[in-house]
């Protein structure tokens, strides 16, 4: 019985993440369209797109790794989701919230992209490979300030677990974005890269690489990537909210907080051209790194 509850809880979490992530994607399209002076598609357009993609035939593959690539991505997203506390105080199914910590999560989050990279590699399309190398290079860029921010928090609160950080915030009564502002700034700047909106959309840059790693993937492959991407967006947003904004007591607050965080990369992206790869990496090793160091100093002093 307990196992059944666990499984149902996990499925409910996945569905929540999928719906929220997809809707956010649609809303982003709507907002972008408004900035463009357009009406834009309805907010549920992404669901239609996903459903259509699922309905398309997928007649070919270039080898089993191409099929496994999206599977890796999906697995990574779902498993990572299991470790993220959705609401504070067990307001949602706890899944595996207490079984892993932040460093574990950092590595788990790489699992999917690496699998996807392998899948993209097998298609034999040079654009895919170039896109992957760009993505990995950029990842090295933004992970540094991101980890600095996390380490700063870990030092400050003597814990590496997400639930521990959430409890620490509940006890102190302030959010970490106020109690360790430098870490928050570094993490937000790193987040720009993590969400891959312009100017950091170098991986699938259409005018340069057609669409990069997904060049050969249509139909069901693309559906899987799209939905796992949505889940992953939810994971990342919830992680930020949990770590820096004290988590959320109920779903409405969760949506408000995640959405407000999400708007940072989206709005910055609308008015920015794309960086070249090395420029993107250097960006992350400029101000974000500086704030990361500040955060570490701040954390080790206080």
């Amino acid at each position, binding site marked *: 019985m307990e196992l059944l509850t666990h499984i149902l809880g996990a499925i409910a979490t996945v569905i929540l993440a999928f719906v929220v992530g997809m809707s956010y994607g649609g809303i982003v399209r709507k907002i972008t369209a408004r900035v463009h002076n357009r009406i834009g598609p309805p907010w549920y357009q992404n669901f239609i797109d996903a459903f259509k993609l699922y309905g398309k035939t*997928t*007649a*070919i*593959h*270039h*080898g089993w*790794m191409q*099929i496994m690539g999206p*599977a890796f991505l*999906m*697995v990574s997203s*779902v*498993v990572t989701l299991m470790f993220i506390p959705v609401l504070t105080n067990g307001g949602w199914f706890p899944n*595996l919230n*207490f*079984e892993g*910590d932040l*460093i*574990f999560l950092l*590595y*788990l989050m*790489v*699992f999917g992209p*690496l699998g996807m*990279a*392998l899948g993209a*590699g*097998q*298609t*034999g*399309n*040079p654009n895919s*490979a*170039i896109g992957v*190398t*760009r993505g*990995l*290079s950029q990842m*090295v860029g933004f992970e*540094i300030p991101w*980890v*600095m921010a996390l*380490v700063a928090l870990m*030092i400050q609160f*003597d*814990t*590496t*677990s997400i639930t*521990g950080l959430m409890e620490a915030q509940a006890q102190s009564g302030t959010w970490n974005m106020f109690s360790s502002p430098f870490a928050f700034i570094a993490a937000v700047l790193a987040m720009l890269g993590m969400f891959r909106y312009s100017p950091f959309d170098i991986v699938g840059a259409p005018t340069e690489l*057609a669409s990069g790693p997904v*060049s*050969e993937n249509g139909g*069901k492959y693309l559906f*899987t990537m799209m939905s796992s991407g949505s889940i992953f967006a939810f994971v990342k947003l919830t992680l930020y909210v949990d770590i820096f904004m004290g988590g959320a007591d109920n779903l409405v607050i969760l949506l408000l907080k995640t959405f407000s965080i999400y708007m940072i990369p989206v709005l910055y992206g609308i008015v920015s051209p794309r960086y070249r*790869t*090395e420029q993107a*990496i250097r960006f992350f*090793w400029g101000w974000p790194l500086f704030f*990361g160091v500040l955060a*570490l100093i701040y954390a080790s002093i206080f």
Partner: protein
Amino acid sequence: MEMIYLIFIIFLGGAVATYLLGKINGVLRDITFLATLIVPAVLFYTQVSIGQTVDFSMSGMNLQWGITDFGYIFAYIVLGLGVLAGIYAVAAMKGKENLGFFYSNYILSIMAMMGILFSRDLVSFFIFWEIMTWSSYLMVVFSGKDVQKVGIKYFIFSAVGAYAMLMAIVTTYSLTGSMMIDSLVTAYPGFDFSMQLLIPILLLIGFGVKSAMMPLHVWASGSYSHAPMAYTAVFSGALSKMGIYGMIIVIVSLVSQIPEGHWFREVIAWLGGITAVGGTLWAVAQDDAKKLLAYSSVAQLGYIIVGVGVGTPLAMLAALFMAVMHGLFKGTLFMAVGAIEKQTGTTNFTEVTGLIRKMPLTFLASLMSIIALAGIPPLGGFIGKWMLYESLVGSDHYMLVIVVFFSSTAAFLYCYKFLFGFFLGQEEPEWAHVKEAPAMMVVPMIIMAIGSFILGVFPGLILNPIDAGLQELGYASTQGRYWEMSMLFNEWGDKVVLQPILYTIIAVFVFFFVFVVAKNFKKTRYVSTKDISSSGEIPKAHENLTFSRGFFQPFLRAVEPLMKHQIDPLYTGFGRGMEAIFDFVRRIYTGNGQTYALYAIIFAVLLLIFKNQLFGL
């Protein structure tokens, strides 16, 4: 007769026998070779008990051999890897020239490593160390290519290391009058401060060379890539760990006894961190798989050195676990490269592409090892990485953790390069003939890959002996505090539970596979990798559609400032100044293996003859 003697006699006898049989019969030689590896391994695990020692006297010196708990961890690596790589070597080296020489050298290396682990006194330690160096040196020049460049580099660094070590030993003897390691440890706190510093530094130079610590790493990439791959698996996987073994003993038994020693350990840790970053960045820049793995080995040894330098119980656990894991996955990867080299004749990423469908098992083994190398759960590499980070964060090494994290994130780059370069990308007609490697090569790889998988879920299996070894070195028991069979804890009690992770991953995979992939897979058909959306054009036959040159060029451009200051030219400049000496050295080292062997023997004999003068001081 003592079992320890028997083991060494078998080794020695086997080495001679394989060398002689090599001239007579190939099959007999192979069988002898494998038997010489397997029999002592079995004997060791069944008959030799920890703490058991044998004493004997040689030309007036008291020597003592015996295995400790701590040495036992490394014995796992040496014998496990030795046997598996031996099986692999038989298949991999088939048809090569001068095999008897290769095999006997191989056996001598294994014997020397076991000897180092058994040595309880500095003399036999040094002698075995030299045998190890010489046998590995002969392996580096085995192929006969680039001996001047690569061989001499390795030789000079090894020699410098050996002399430093010898000086330390001589100094110790003059101070304590004993050759026993234990007596050094007990007498050490009584030395004056300059000696307290000098001895560890000299020893660490010796060990640092073997473990490729910055700035003594220069020899590593060339030597690792020039030795036959079957041996490099041992070379990088086990032999380099001897440096770590020595380093841990020095740091834990000696350095931690001096009150002001913590800065010394910081230096070591930072050297390790720099080694990791430098090795990783250079690995990213390589186009040759052997070189890539060689630099990657440097980087991985850097992590281990970081752990050793930090030296908290968790860090030591991490370092030792990583040492074991590194033996597993790096051994596998070198074997995979060897398999590819055997099947295609080259190890260059810009030439070989698209082998995934030709060599699926090699790919699988490489994939698992790469995941382990990258430290992605649920494979074993993750455990070591996790413990290292937790120990660094827990012991307030903030900047070091960032440095290490940078290195291990950048490691994803070369990990992908390795997999993509060989296995993915276009399937070119020029490699259409390639077949999977022989079973004797594949099976050891798969066994080791599975090993790293099992250790990823049940790290307790190997953490248990590590714990015993650490207790022997004076640490409190860590079981239950930092780890359980499949659970890890950090200083603050945060935990990672490994089994549910594995089960969740498997469950989601199965769910996904059954409902999406498998259903879909039946309907889809394989098409050639030439059938890609190349903007509507149909590529001509000669056009290269594989992206392999300048793989991470933008990244390297971004990290250019870091890579500009490399250490190699410094040595070259130094060497140019010493041209005259080098000329002389070159005259002695003719490049012929036999000459070196002769030289080694003369060196050992001279050492024995003049020992009294040397050691009498």
